[in-house]
């Protein structure tokens, strides 16, 4: 080969050299930015542990009280789905490969539970609860059921059953307090749906009953298990946002289901529903299918937006900030869209003041617009957007980050920190594109990291507390704060005035 040939073959070697040079320059620049921000923020890369359930763990015998919409979800999260539900998931999976509800359910760990008894005052749901409870093998209608658990017609009878260790309560709001109190007195451990109570008075009584009878209590705010909230808590504790002075949380829905206009079951009638038991401590009313299936629309049984949806937002922030009960609450709103005879508002704004923490929390909700406004936590140095991922942006007016913004290390247009559950290596900087996807929950949903239902984790934490004496994250003290906060919001709305919390006497004034 001639020398000329060799030179011509290797003509692009200088390009390779230039590429390598530029590549390392770019990498070093990115590393410089990332490390600078990472050192400045000092946020850990820890993710919560996931412990498998041991087969040696003590079997816990559960009583299911209420098998409506939420009751079905809770039973499923505990590992017991009705065979027709499994049929539906299987069918869904056949029709749409994206539908992984069936696969997901089969992957869900078994919690070593037995459904020992069920109670629902609507016959159809009562029977379905039995069938779900007997479906330990997680099969469809063509599968085999174990022996059906006993169905009780009243919760009192279920609670008297000595073979039941613990109860999951998914009754309407006005029954949460009375059933919790009775369950505690019967020595049963309690997982109760939110809100903890329907009236202020019950709130004291539930707390007293739980503490006196020493049972394990978990309130159903499964958001406690959300990885992003745990990360947000760490970020705020480390002062990344500076002095937080305003929190904005919101609810936006815009469909009949979201506004609690649920379907009415065709089997439902005065013959199949124990109406008197439904009414309980609520004001008497003639039999009404609307009221039975859509009870969330009436103050007579419901706690409205405040108890139903504000509480999830409040509990998330209480978990992150340790807010406690607010100093004051003011609310306004009305029934502006769903003029269907309901008494609870469909638009609600509530403002809570936390004088000790020097911050306000604003809750704003509508059931008739889908404009998603998310959760925003505002501090002097940075603000956080919190959904399934955590995103932190430096504030242009920040004193802490001023120097780094001035010399180009921090760009207030780009997040200084993002966290999406399921990613192992948490990076301070991600590209705007991946950021865009992460915020919409489009990313990583098919990667190897296991996705786990938060309600399943929340029940699991409760069972661990029963078995090993650990603590529940949504324990009775936290639940007390949640209920009082919701009641303050409701009272402020109903009485159209500021209401205040007296921390010494523990009363709303």
């Amino acid at each position, binding site marked *: *080969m001639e020398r000329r*040939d060799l030179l011509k073959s290797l003509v692009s070697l200088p*390009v390779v050299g230039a590429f390598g040079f530029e590549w390392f320059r770019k990498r070093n620049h990115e590393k410089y930015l990332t490390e600078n921000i990472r050192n400045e923020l000092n946020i850990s890369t820890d993710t919560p542990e996931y412990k498998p359930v041991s087969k040696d763990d003590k079997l816990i015998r559960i009583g299911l009280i209420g098998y409506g919409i939420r009751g079905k979800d809770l039973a499923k999260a505990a590992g017991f789905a009705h065979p027709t539900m499994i049929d539906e998931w299987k069918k869904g999976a056949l029709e749409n490969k994206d539908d992984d509800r069936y696969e997901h359910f089969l992957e869900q760990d078994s919690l070593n539970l037995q459904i020992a008894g069920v109670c629902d005052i609507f016959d159809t749901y009562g029977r379905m609860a039995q069938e779900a409870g007997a479906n330990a093998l997680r099969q469809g209608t063509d599968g085999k059921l174990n022996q059906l658990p006993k169905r009780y017609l009243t919760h009192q009878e279920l609670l008297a059953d000595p073979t039941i260790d613990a109860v999951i309560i998914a009754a309407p709001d006005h029954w949460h307090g009375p059933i919790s109190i009775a369950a505690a007195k019967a020595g049963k451990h309690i997982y109760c749906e939110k809100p903890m109570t329907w009236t202020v008075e019950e709130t004291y009584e539930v707390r007293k009953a739980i503490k006196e009878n020493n049972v394990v209590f978990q309130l159903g705010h499964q958001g406690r298990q959300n990885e992003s909230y745990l990360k947000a808590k760490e970020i705020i504790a480390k002062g990344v946002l500076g002095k937080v002075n305003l929190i904005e949380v919101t609810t936006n829905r815009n469909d009949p289901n979201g506004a609690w206009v649920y379907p009415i079951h065709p089997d439902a009638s005065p013959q199949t529903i124990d109406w008197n038991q439904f009414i309980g401590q609520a004001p008497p009313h003639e039999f009404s299918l609307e009221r039975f299936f859509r009870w969330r629309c009436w103050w007579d049984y419901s706690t409205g937006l405040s108890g139903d949806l504000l509480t999830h937002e409040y509990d998330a922030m209480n978990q992150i900030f340790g807010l406690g009960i607010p100093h004051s609450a003011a609310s306004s709103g009305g029934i502006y869209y769903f003029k269907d005879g309901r008494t609870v508002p469909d638009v609600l704004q509530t403002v809570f003041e936390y004088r000790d923490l020097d911050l306000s929390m604003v809750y704003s909700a509508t059931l008739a617009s889908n404009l998603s406004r998310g959760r925003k936590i505002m501090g002097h140095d940075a603000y956080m957007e919190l959904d399934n991922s955590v995103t932190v942006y430096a504030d242009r007016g920040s004193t802490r980050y001023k120097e780094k913004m001035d010399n180009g290390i921090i760009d207030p247009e780009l997040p200084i920190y993002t966290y999406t559950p399921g990613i192992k290596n948490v990076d301070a900087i991600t590209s705007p594109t991946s950021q865009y996807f992460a915020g919409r929950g489009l990313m990583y949903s098919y990667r190897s990291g296991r996705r786990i239902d938060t309600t399943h984790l929340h029940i699991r934490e409760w069972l661990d507390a029963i078995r090993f004496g650990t603590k529940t994250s949504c324990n009775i003290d936290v639940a007390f704060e949640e209920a009082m906060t919701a009641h303050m919001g409701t009272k402020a709305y109903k009485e159209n005035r500021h209401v205040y919390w007296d921390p010494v006497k523990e009363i709303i004034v």
Partner: protein
Amino acid sequence: MNYSFSQKFWLVALRIAIGWHFLYEGLVKLANANWSSAGYLLDSEGFLKDFFVNTLAGNPNMLQVIDFINIWGLILIGIGLILGTFERIACISGILLLALYYLSHPPFVGLKYAVPSEGSYLVVNKILIEMIALAVVYVFPTNREFGLDRFIFGPAKNKK
């Protein structure tokens, strides 16, 4: 090859520039442990949407294969084009990859994407242009003139 010097020069420059782009796109993905094509695929539109969203992105095993092929395809094509080696395979593979990118996000009337594009496109976008440019490189090969293939396979014979 009867090209003039400037024809050869610009053809080689085009080949190397496209190679540089491919190599960098591949290395960036390789260097980011969290990179996945899932986001891009899930955002697909057009008549092959179902294929990209369900067949590729919807299957975790398939996704791993796609990610692997994508990363190493980009890197190897890039190296091939820069060095001028296995140029024909590199061109064809490159055209195929670009065609897949184009077809998953075609800039057709009425289709919308989660990620806004950095420019304004109607039917023709930069992916399509890069694809056509690669076709040009394919039909006007320079690898046996200025490239490692001259060393491996010998210089191109001038046609009479």
